[in-house]
């Protein structure tokens, strides 16, 4: 590090050998400024930048949130530092602590400090935070313009020291303001035995975060601490000439006080920006890159982004990350889109969690409320169109993880809405933390995500204490401690490896499906490479993500995807299933498992002509031609003249049927006909994972409908049961009854809705036997049968568009899409490994006791 701590001024002659690094100057050494520097360093910024930090406060960087704890005596000053003075030295940062910046000369690119010193910069970051707002009251100031003695604000370490000293010698305090800071000040003073009255002009406490009911419950809890509260009352004046003696209310009442804390809000500190000619409205106006001018950026409470200013710490972690991505060039495309993370606080000892709307706004909003004021517990959830759009938890915040997940990802909700707030019997709390995405912020105070906690556990921290020490999670207001503990237990206990990316739709793009879908729609991305360019970190392609993205795009834009063949898995490029020796299997469509003599004749001819390795009746009620060479596929298809059976795709596959009313003695419904009609309608539709259907003519269930993804059972009197989520593969699960309907048309309509809903909400490779229990059959029934969410018309329409876009992929055999589409990729050295006719099969090897483990090449006659 070459720049020394002496003020390197432009006017001081020839500067000593300037390093080739760029000069980064940060104005404001608070939580945002220091975090920004940390993020820059984390991205290797020390190689790129010489860093200078100006801080008006004469300290290192401390956790401002913990000033509440310092005031209440729970923590001492030493315990709140995030970055000590030594940290700056160790990292080669030139810290100018106790030096305020006056303005920036953006033309000359120098920062001018309070002493007139000029510090040149290449990049400047403003992180000036906010200043307490003193409302207009008479008598706040002495004749000389200074505040009356005994009047304090609560923002800095110095403020806190002064308040602590005053608390020892003063008896009666009035706190003006019943928001977060006012309540914390009142609570802190009360712990020192000071008698506290709190005056708040809005009608209820913490009106910024809470609805009226929650505010009332909070008030009871605060009053239980011995603090008297007046709401809906504006203070008119301070009484006293030199020292404060009391606070006067509009009705003339004077509340006697020798100590007054003004905590009536904050305003972004914009002085420096204003003097520098940067855009300022309520705060310093920044764009999505956190930039407010040429090479000037701003982060933290001083900024206004998309019209929004923030008064809590959570958003600044995100802002600092985006800023650092830009400054270091790690991700030049990074953008900040505003924060809507949950507010999690501990106020006056009470846990408060708030996200989204505090209460219902329209008549159609559902509102679930639980209130138990004597225990200080209040909880609500606001649901709109089946999505969680708001939740408040007070006093009991155990459902935070679950609600935050539902809120962040707009997940479908349990039909039994009370389950939003309570664990109705079964699911344990840790279900919530397991489902929380890795990027979910758990500790808002220190910007710690679930992923960071899990990493710490994997690195060997297995006690709550060790995790907290390593990550700082839970060391702010402490409200998240229980969640941190749950995650620690979950991560330490779960034997399965915890994959950071478990919730992402595909590994290469850090987004869950709903988020990804929204981004693809908004940016109208129609090709896999466009998705990577726009959404992957660094715009980088990822081979293992391509197949899932192709499937998703084809679902979102039926018939309108820009087809990129490399986005497809080999099976989907050549419309056949690759085999162990690189040959392929060909399964023609045989709707409902019904075939004809003519089809069988063709199959027989093709098998002879192309010397097919094996002809086999499959478990899906059709015929498989195995061991077909890639270059023969177009010929096989043409000669068969049958459409693809999609036995290779993550798609709709088959409908197994039984012989039904036409032939069976017991048949109650024409299952064969219905199965054929269903296959005709749903053929080839891409789904998150394979989809296999079954239709049976009576509950004897000969075609195994109860264990199909969709199983239809005729039950008599023209009625049909539709079951979903069954399995008899790697897992065995009996399907859940979705509904009983009165006609085959209704079966097809309901099945279509289920398929489309699964396509839109299922995760990549999530079979219906996982999907259905994840959402719950009640929820599915509400959406798909009762149209609880008004989704049916849309589902029908989008499914229809997909059906309309169907085209038999085997037609590609006539005109290959890419050069060499059907060219062999077989390394023909000592392959194929698969037997030409398997042991035991007609024409195959005579079974032998030692006839090789399947792994050994048992070629008969070699490759064709």
């Amino acid at each position, binding site marked *: 590090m070459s720049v020394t701590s002496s003020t390197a001024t432009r006017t001081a002659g020839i500067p000593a050998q300037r390093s080739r690094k760029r000069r980064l100057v940060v104005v404001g050494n608070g939580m945002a400024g220091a975090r920004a520097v940390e993020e820059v360093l984390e991205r290797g910024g020390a190689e790129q930048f010489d860093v200078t930090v100006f801080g008006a406060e004469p300290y290192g960087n401390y956790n401002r949130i913990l000033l509440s704890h310092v005031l209440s005596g729970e923590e001492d000053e030493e315990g709140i530092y995030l970055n000590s003075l030594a940290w700056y030295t160790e990292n080669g940062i030139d810290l100018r602590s106790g030096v305020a910046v006056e303005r920036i000369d953006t033309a000359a690119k120098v920062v001018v400090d309070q002493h007139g010193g000029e510090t040149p910069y290449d990049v400047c970051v403003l992180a000036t935070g906010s200043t307490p707002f003193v409302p207009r009251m008479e008598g706040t100031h002495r004749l000389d313009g200074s505040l009356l003695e005994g009047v304090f604000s609560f923002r800095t370490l110095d403020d806190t020291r002064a308040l602590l000293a005053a608390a020892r010698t003063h008896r009666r305090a009035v706190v003006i303001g019943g928001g977060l800071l006012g309540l914390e000040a009142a609570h802190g003073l009360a712990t020192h035995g000071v008698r506290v009255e709190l005056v708040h002009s809005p009608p209820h406490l913490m009106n910024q975060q809470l609805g009226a009911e929650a505010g009332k419950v909070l008030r009871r809890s605060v009053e239980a601490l011995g603090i008297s509260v007046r709401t809906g009352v504006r203070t008119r004046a301070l009484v006293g000439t030199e020292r404060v003696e009391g606070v006067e209310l509009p009705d003339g009442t004077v509340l006697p006080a020798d100590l007054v804390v003004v905590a009536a809000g904050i305003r972004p500190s914009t002085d420096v920006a204003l003097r520098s000619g940067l855009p300022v409205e309520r705060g310093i106006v920044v764009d999505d890159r956190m930039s407010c001018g040429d090479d000037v950026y701003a982060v933290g409470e001083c900024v206004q982004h998309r019209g929004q200013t923030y008064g809590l710490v959570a958003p600044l972690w995100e802002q600092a990350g985006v800023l650092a991505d830009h400054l270091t060039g790690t991700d030049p495309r990074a953008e900040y889109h505003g924060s809507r993370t949950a507010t999690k606080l501990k106020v006056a000892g009470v846990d408060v969690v708030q996200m989204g709307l505090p209460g219902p706004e329209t008549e159609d909003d559902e509102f679930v409320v639980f209130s138990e004021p004597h225990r200080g517990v209040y909880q609500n959830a606001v649901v709109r169109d089946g999505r969680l759009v708001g939740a408040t938890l007070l006093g009991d915040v155990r459902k935070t993880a679950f609600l935050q997940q539902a809120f962040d990802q707009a997940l479908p909700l349990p039909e039994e809405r009370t389950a939003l707030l309570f664990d109705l019997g079964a699911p344990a709390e840790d279900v919530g933390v397991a489902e929380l995405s890795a990027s979910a912020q758990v500790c808002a105070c220190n910007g710690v995500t679930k992923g960071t906690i899990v990493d710490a556990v994997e690195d060997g921290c297995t006690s709550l204490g060790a995790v907290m020490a390593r990550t700082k999670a839970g060391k702010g207001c402490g409200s998240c401690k229980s969640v941190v503990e749950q995650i620690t237990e979950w991560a330490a206990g779960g034997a399965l490896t915890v994959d950071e990316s478990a919730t992402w739709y595909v590994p290469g793009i850090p987004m869950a499906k709903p988020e990804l879908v929204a981004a693809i729609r908004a940016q109208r991305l129609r090709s896999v490479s466009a998705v990577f360019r726009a959404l992957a970190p660094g715009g980088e392609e*990822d081979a293992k993500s391509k197949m899932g993205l192709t499937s998703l795009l084809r679902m979102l834009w039926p018939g309108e995807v820009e087809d990129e063949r*490399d986005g497809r898995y*080999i099976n989907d490029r050549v419309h056949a299933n690759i085999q162990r020796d690189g040959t392929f299997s060909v399964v023609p469509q045989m709707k409902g498992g019904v075939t004809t003599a003519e089809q069988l004749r063709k199959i027989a001819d093709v098998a002879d002509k192309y010397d097919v390795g094996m002809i086999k009746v499959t478990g899906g009620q059709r015929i498989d031609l195995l061991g077909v060479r890639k270059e023969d596929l177009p010929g096989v298809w043409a000669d068969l003249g049958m459409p693809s059976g999609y036995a290779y795709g993550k798609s709709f596959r088959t409908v197994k049927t039984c012989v039904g009313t036409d032939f069976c003695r017991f048949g109650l419904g024409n299952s064969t006909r219905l199965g054929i009609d269903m296959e005709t309608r749903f053929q080839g539709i891409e789904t998150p994972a394979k989809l296999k259907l079954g239709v049976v003519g009576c509950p004897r269930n000969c075609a195994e409908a109860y264990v199909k993804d969709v199983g239809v059972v005729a039950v008599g009197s023209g009625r049909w049961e539709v079951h979903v989520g069954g399995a008899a593969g790697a897992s065995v699960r009996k399907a859940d009854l979705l509904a009983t309907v009165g006609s085959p048309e209704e079966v097809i309509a309901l099945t279509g809705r289920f398929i489309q809903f699964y396509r839109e909400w299922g995760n990549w490779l999530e079979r219906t036997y996982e999907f259905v229990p994840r959402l719950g059959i009640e929820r599915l029934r509400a959406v798909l049968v009762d149209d609880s969410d008004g989704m049916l018309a849309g589902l029908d329409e989008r499914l229809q568009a997909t059906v309309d876009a169907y085209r038999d992929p085997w037609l590609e055999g006539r005109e290959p899409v890419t050069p*060499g589409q059907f060219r062999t990729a*077989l390394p023909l*050295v000592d392959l194929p490994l698969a037997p030409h006719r398997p042991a035991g099969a007609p024409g195959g090897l005579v079974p032998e006791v030692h006839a090789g483990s399947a*792994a050994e090449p048992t070629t008969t006659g070699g490759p064709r």
Partner: protein
Amino acid sequence: MTSTTSAHDVCSLEEVPPGEGRAFAVAGQQVAVFRHRSGRVSAVQAACPHAGGPLADGQIDERVVVCPLHLNAFDLTTGESSGDCAPLRVHPCRVDAVGRVSVEV
């Protein structure tokens, strides 16, 4: 070890669609040639070291090829597997001004 390699003209770039691979016999060896979307080409042995899978049918990005059979990934520059398979043989290769791909074997 005394092995000499020399460059062989293998195909024109057009024969390998963007983002895909094709297999060729080059001087008696099976080689899979990949054309990255960035325009680069890579060439490696055609048979997967794991169980002989046809790597030219795999999916690629700028770094790896994923074998179609059991989805093992191999670095196209170093040949190393991201799991614990044996490494691939990597063949230096290039595209000339008129779009011919040559591979050293």
